[in-house]
């Protein structure tokens, strides 16, 4: 019963009180707190893991997007190049065609002009022959009975004229 001998009464009460305190706290106190802390910890861990996964997925998406953009840009430049080529080609073709057309028109015109000229010349020659014949008729009617030399000259003239008419 002195300082260092345990007193029975106090020991009894201590055991009882501690037992009750332990029962109450172990049932309604500490497990509530520790379980919740544990759950929150799990939740936080899970959230961090999720965030990491999302981050990775975002990075993959960004990479994919970048690639798509690159591809699109490449395609765009290819299309532009092709378009400019096509334009040049079409222009060249059109020019070529126009030139050919023009050449053809020119050639046609030339042949037509030549034909016109020919027929006009022929008409003129015929007219000249007829004119010369009528002129010659008029001259002959006047002087043909003169002499022999004149006769000869007339023959020569007619000859020449007919030759020219054949030509």
């Amino acid at each position, binding site marked *: *019963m*002195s*300082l*260092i*001998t*345990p*007193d*029975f*009464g*106090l*020991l*009894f*009460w*201590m*055991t009882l*009180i*501690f037992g*009750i*305190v*332990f029962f*109450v*706290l*172990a049932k*309604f*106190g*500490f*497990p*509530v*707190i*520790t379980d*919740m*802390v544990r*759950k*929150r910890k799990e*939740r936080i861990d899970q959230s961090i893991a999720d965030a990491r996964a999302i981050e990775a997925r975002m990075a993959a998406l960004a990479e994919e997007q970048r690639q798509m953009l690159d591809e699109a840009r490449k395609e765009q430049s290819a299309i532009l190049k092709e378009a400019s080529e096509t334009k040049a080609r079409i222009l060249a073709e059109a020019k070529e065609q126009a030139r050919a057309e023009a050449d053809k028109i020119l050639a046609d015109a030339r042949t037509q002009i030549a034909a016109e000229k020919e027929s006009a010349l022929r008409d003129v020659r015929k007219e000249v022959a007829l004119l010369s014949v009528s002129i010659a008729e008029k001259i002959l009617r006047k002087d043909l009975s003169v002499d022999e030399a004149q006769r000869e000259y007339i023959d020569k003239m007619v000859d020449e004229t007919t030759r020219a008419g054949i030509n």
Partner: protein
Amino acid sequence: MKWLRYIAVLFLSILPVPLSAEELDMDEYLYGHVLDSYEWHITTVNGHPVSIPLPVIVHSKTTGWHVFSSRHLEEGPYEGFYLVHDPETHKERIMEQTPDGDVRPLDISITKNVAGLMFNSLVLVLLILIGARWYKKHDAREEAPGGFAGLIEMLVSMVEDDIIKPCVGPDYKRYSPYLLTAFFFIFVNNLLGIVPFFPGGANITGNIAVTFAMAMFTFLAVNLFGNKHYYKDIFWPDVPMFLKVIPLMPLIEIIGMFTKPFSLMVRLFANILAGHMMILGVVAVVFLTAELGAAMNSGLTVIAVVFGVFMDILELLVAFLQAYIFTMLSSVFIGLSRQHPEEEKE
């Protein structure tokens, strides 16, 4: 202005003041404060003690149970029981007058320590349950508590993460409620023991019966749930055969089973008791030096107050530290009893 006032107070204190030269009985003063008693002495006003009478519960072999107020014991024998004050141990105890001479009855009185224990336990239970109530109203997965619940959660998490988890090992969840209860029980009782006025100030964790009970609980927790490997290590350890034939090692191991909780018991008891004694001693300087004159007395009073503040702060540290050590060592002992042999091979 402030300094002037201080100087005035200092001068006044040096003036010879007639003090009641009442001799302070140092032993009575010290033991009266650290030991248990049947009434709760709060203070003394004009020579009249102000105290709360507590119920005395005794069982006599001849007359059965007796429950009465401790106030009756002051006047002398009551229902055949009387109070003995042992001048050697400074301990009060109740004796019963019987025809065959005086015997000690079975005494489970609500003494000062029991009353203090009840009050402190109530405080502890309220603290933890108020802390735990927060979780019923909130989803702890979505938010963390602040304020009081946050403080309790921080302390609980600290004890569980820093002491219980690493010391007990994989089975810690099973022991966590006991170890947390032990920690907070000791911590709250230590802290309220430092509070110098009613209802604090009872020297509870500095009482050997309390620490004995605490150590006993740890002893049970260790030995009731010890696994095969633990008991094999005690009765058939891996030592040379001759140490087992003459059962030297098992003997040492069995003694070790008891010395571990014994050390827990003595460590907590001695630390808290010594702390109380130190503070009481420092405070006693004020009264002991009263005879030496006002100047000496006031000088030493200043020193005593400074030392008292220092000791109180030190005791705050000790209050936490002893709860921490008790819990940690209990965890280590439990951890040893739950060790798995495959872990040891590593």
